[in-house]
């Protein structure tokens, strides 16, 4: 019972830490990391440009969501 409670608290902490009120960032980072890994295998030079630009696009998307929520 105590262990279950502790695990739930631990899980809630990580959920709040990673997802929190910006789920689009958590999801977007996961997509970028996987996509970056795939692009790096086939076109390593292109990945150097694509990854930072994708991160900027994610920041813009998150800002738009923040503006709508504000």
């Amino acid at each position, binding site marked *: 019972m105590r262990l279950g409670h502790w695990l739930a608290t631990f899980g809630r*902490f990580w959920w709040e*830490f*990673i997802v*929190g009120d*910006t789920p689009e*960032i*958590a999801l977007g*980072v*996961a997509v*970028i*990391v996987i996509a*970056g*890994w795939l692009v*790096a*295998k086939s076109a*390593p030079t292109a*990945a*150097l440009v694509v*990854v*930072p630009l994708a*991160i*900027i696009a*994610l*920041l*813009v998307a*998150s*800002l738009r969501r*923040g*503006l709508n929520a*504000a």
Partner: protein
Amino acid sequence: MADREGRSHGVARVTATVLVGLAVFAACAVEMVEALTIVLAAGLTRGWRSALEGSALAVLVLAAIVAAVGPALIHLIPMSVLRVVVGSLLLVLGLQWLGKAILRASGHKALRDEVAIYKREVTRLSGLPLRGSGRDAAGFVISFKGVFLEGLEVVMIVLTLGLSSGNLGVAVIGAGSAVVLVGIVGAVLARQLSEVPENSMKMGVGLMLVTFGTFWGGEGAGLQWPGADLALFGLLALYGVTAWVAVGLLTRSRRQSGAAETT
């Protein structure tokens, strides 16, 4: 030729190490200002002994987490996997900080008001019954929770930046100096925490976390950044310009919508 290459590589490494130390220092300073607001409120209303003991215990527990988890992660997890996980965590954390800092700097989100938070805490704590002598449980627990919860984010930054750069020591020193500095400044200035440029610091930390997150996440995923560690400066400049443009555009759009509302 090889000597010059080696020297520039060495300079890039040293600069990257300094950047790691600065990022951890600034992140820790921001979180400690937030924790200090709670500790000051607890100290002034419930007594300093309980507040300081609660804070000291929280710092000890946080240090123990770094000491226990840090070396274990280095030995148990391959560096490439660690860098992908750490890079992703830094990106998530950095984009969260950066996004909120941009919205606050452009006036779309209210700035964190430490004075208002302090006053709210004082009112809340003053309402609780006070024991005559000895340790006050409420003051102890509230200070412990305040420092521990704010400090957990710092622990995450110390571990992620420290492990990926291979400079856990530098990260720990950066965090430790911020704790000492904010503690001294807090003790001297007491209730003038609103003077701290918290949002600018958060913006700087957010930029550095996103930069390191991109760099190490990319390296873990198999990217080879041109110029090795020097690429950090290119990424930092790219994200810095993006944030600057975003703040400018959002500030202008807010002014325009404000002007349209008044006419």
